């Protein structure tokens, strides 16, 4: 269904004679900081997000270390509350939301559709600076206005009682939100207007579909967090009662506003991850991605349905029973397309040729972890069960399985997949596999124990559980196991950082198409790509996963074009 097969009409050789590529032209810091090249902006995002991920990870390790044993371990209650707040704010707003669109969306999307760049390159660079301003504001707020201890959800009236630091931090989130809106706008226009000849909508790689659906959510949902922030300001400055009951406001209204943005934001985080998984499953199974049309359109469907389920965060908030019932039903509606995506990814391997390289290990890890995250999502979507599980560690475990086990694992898989394209170097496959194992074991030990903690009654955001041990003696062992797991997980992530950096200086030069992929960034661009991506405008004659038609990669008789490149490694 994707393409009608004229394999030999495609241009086959885009190697540049000069060897000039986007990394070795226009050298120097100033050239990088003023670049309009989507590939360089993607790398700028990668550097920024990597730093914030390191910070957020350190906060997470501090939280887990404090909880390793009952009683005060390394910090007092105030420090603990500030640390988990910082962990949440940094990971959600500075890592998960910008990561995949900012890094891989920027780098890969124009290449995959055969474009020279995004539609608005200057806006693209501006969005990175706006993101940095928001991020620096968020991280330096404690120097200027003091620490925030409200949790990343900023629930009123607790947040209205505390200092101006909350307004500062929400302003930072608001500013970073504009970066998200601009990126989304850019991608929507780019996908509509800049596709190469022959790149019809049903030949778009599924990563492009996913980023496109994400962009719709970014543009439509992000303004709501801005509106919420403005209302918080108006309440504080003009003493209008909006959220603060002391002024006649309604604190639950804040929760509605907050989740009206923050639930769609969950899809900003997970939809692009699903796009990466589609690419990995196709390439490493060398088979057409099962249910292409469904996966593509379900991304868009999920993007729209994602706006209608915010109330499932509020089943015990005091909202009306009717609201809770409707939100529960809508939540299941969104669960079904998500489940079908998982079935289709597994089915992609059927009668394929499965190659267990590091990126594929992360794709399979995603399927394992995301399935657990999804099934426990059904568990907490069921009204009566959620009453017991709400605001316990079960919820913490559930969203870490989706956000980290889903979004971040997919990002890591995607970075491994496109690493040769981005850097022109290969990383150590052996180190990649060891790190993947550490991440898998560490992650499950950290978070599976939290499912049990939560369903047995352990509330989240507790600095101490010593008083609970009399009735719940098992909490001590489970918390300790979770902390041990988090250290294993951190070791795995550090290992990735180290062999990634090592490959930059000592990695083998990457062949043009090391995985035998058939999307444009591998078939029609050099590795690394030239400053303007393609020598000639690509002419697209087949679907993104038509391996059987990709004779310029594999040779006309199921030949060994890729095999030659592979054997050079």
């Amino acid at each position, binding site marked *: 269904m994707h393409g009608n097969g004229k394999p030999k009409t495609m241009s086959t050789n885009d190697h540049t004679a000069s060897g000039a590529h986007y990394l070795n032209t226009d050298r120097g810091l100033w050239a990088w900081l003023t670049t309009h090249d989507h590939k360089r902006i993607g790398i700028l995002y990668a550097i920024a997000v990597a730093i914030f991920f390191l910070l957020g990870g350190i906060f997470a390790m501090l939280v887990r270390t404090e909880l390793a044993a009952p009683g005060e371990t390394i910090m007092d209650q*105030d420090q603990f*509350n500030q640390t988990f707040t910082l962990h949440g704010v940094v990971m959600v707003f500075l890592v998960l939301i910008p990561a995949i669109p900012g890094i891989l969306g920027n780098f890969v999307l124009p290449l995959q559709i055969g474009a020279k760049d995004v539609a608005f390159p200057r806006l693209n660079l501006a969005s990175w600076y706006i993101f940095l301003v928001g991020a620096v504001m968020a991280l330096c707020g404690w120097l200027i206005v003091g620490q925030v201890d409200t*949790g990343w959800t900023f*629930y009123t*009236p*607790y947040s209205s009682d505390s200092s101006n630091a909350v307004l500062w931090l929400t302003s930072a989130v608001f500013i970073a939100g504009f970066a998200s809106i601009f990126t989304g706008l850019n991608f929507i226009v780019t996908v509509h207007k800049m596709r190469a000849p022959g790149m019809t909508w049903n030949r778009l790689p599924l990563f492009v579909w996913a980023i496109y659906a994400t962009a719709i959510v970014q543009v439509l949902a992000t303004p709501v967090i801005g509106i919420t922030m403005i209302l918080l300001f108006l309440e504080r400055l003009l003493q209008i009662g909006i959220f603060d*009951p002391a002024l006649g406001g*309604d*604190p639950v209204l804040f929760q509605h506003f907050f989740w009206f943005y923050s639930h769609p934001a969950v899809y900003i985080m997970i939809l692009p991850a699903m796009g990466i998984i589609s690419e990995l499953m196709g390439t490493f*199974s*060398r088979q057409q991605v099962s*249910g292409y049309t469904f996966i593509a359109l379900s991304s868009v469907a999920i993007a729209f349905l994602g706006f209608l389920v915010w109330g499932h965060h509020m089943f*015990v908030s*005091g909202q009306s*029973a009717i609201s809770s019932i409707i939100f*529960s039903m809508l939540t*299941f509606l969104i669960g*079904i397309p998500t*489940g*079908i995506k*998982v079935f289709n990814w*597994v089915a992609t*391997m*059927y*009668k394929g*040729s*499965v*190659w*267990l390289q590091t990126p594929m290990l992360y794709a*399979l890890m995603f*399927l*394992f972890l995301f399935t657990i995250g999804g*099934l*426990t999502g*059904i568990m907490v979507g*069921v*009204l*009566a*069960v959620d*009453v*017991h599980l709400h*605001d*316990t560690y079960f919820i913490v475990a559930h969203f870490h399985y989706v956000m980290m086990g889903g979004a971040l694992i997919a990002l890591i898989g995607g970075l491994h997949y496109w690493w040769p394209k981005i850097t022109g170097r290969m990383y150590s496959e052996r180190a990649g596999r060891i790190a993947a194992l550490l991440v898998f074991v560490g992650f499950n030990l950290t978070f599976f124990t939290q499912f049990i903690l939560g*369903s*047995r*009654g352990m*509330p989240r*955001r*507790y600095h*101490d559980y010593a008083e*609970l041990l009399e009735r*719940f003696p098992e909490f001590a062992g489970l918390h300790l196991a979770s902390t041990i797991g988090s250290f294993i997980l951190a070791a795995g992530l550090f290992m990735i950082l180290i062999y990634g950096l090592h490959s930059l200086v000592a990695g083998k030069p990457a062949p043009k198409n090391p995985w*035998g992929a058939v999307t444009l960034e591998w078939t029609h661009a050099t590795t690394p790509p030239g400053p303007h991506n393609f020598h000639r405008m690509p002419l697209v004659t087949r679907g993104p996963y*038509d*391996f059987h038609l990709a004779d310029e990669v*594999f040779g006309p008789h199921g030949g*060994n074009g*890729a095999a030659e490149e*592979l*054997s050079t490694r």
Partner: protein
Amino acid sequence: MDDQSSIWLPEAASTFAEDVDGLFYFILAVSVVLFVAVIGAMCWFTYRYRRQSDADRPVPFKESKWVEASWIVVPTVLVAIVFTWGFRVYVKMGVAPPNAYEITVRAAKWSWLFEYPNGVRSNVLHVPVSRPVRLKMSSSDVIHSFFVPAFRVKMDVLPNRYTYAWFEATRQDTFQVLCTEYCGQQHSMMLSRVVVQSEDNFQAWLRESVMDESMPPAERGEIIFAQQGCPTCHSVDGSAGAGPTLQGLAGSERAFTDGTTAIADENYLRDAIIDPVAQVVQGFQPVMPGQYGATLTTEDIDALIAFIQEQ
């Protein structure tokens, strides 16, 4: 630990706990089956269709419409079942029987206060066994959440309206009460207990707990001190807490964060209860709630001061 507890869920001690647990285990069982099917297929395909040669070029196959349809129909049926089941139990959990015994719950940073129809106040929840109890809950500051894991009951407690929860305890024992909506510094200390008693013992406790007006002020003060949850932050034995200890407090010289000092006489103690953040003792945060001037009577405050003076 009771033998009713399992790996997954804590002991169950309310009438609808069984309904919730049955549903939990049903979803868990279906989830395990689906998970094993998905991951089993994934592992089998990984092995069965592993790459034999770099030149492998599998031929696309026609996707079966029936298989695709089953992926839509089976999950839809399953979620329809769990939604309906969850909805029915939720309605049961949301509607208290009309004959329920009503207890007023007041949440504040960081204590629970339970008030009975005869005026008795307690910071431990006493309830009769095998009788529906309805809680009418409100908060005097931020949002809290009332959670008893053994009863599978949870409900947010709001500052601007009443929320309700109900349960019927099935056996006599003591259970944990937790706050599950993050409420600041001492959130993890905002704990209490439910004591489930026989009807006779419960009634006896109610009668004994009526505060005696002829009680000496310091004794009344001690009861109010406990009822208001003050011990969460203020110790009477000199140990450290979120607030200063009461030991040796009365008559001592206090040094404040603004650099001033004062002697802790009766007027200071009164001001410190009514407007606690006006002067904050060095080494502490301005975190004490300010509602006591409104919620306590003059007699209550006198009694509290008398109690503090004895420490």
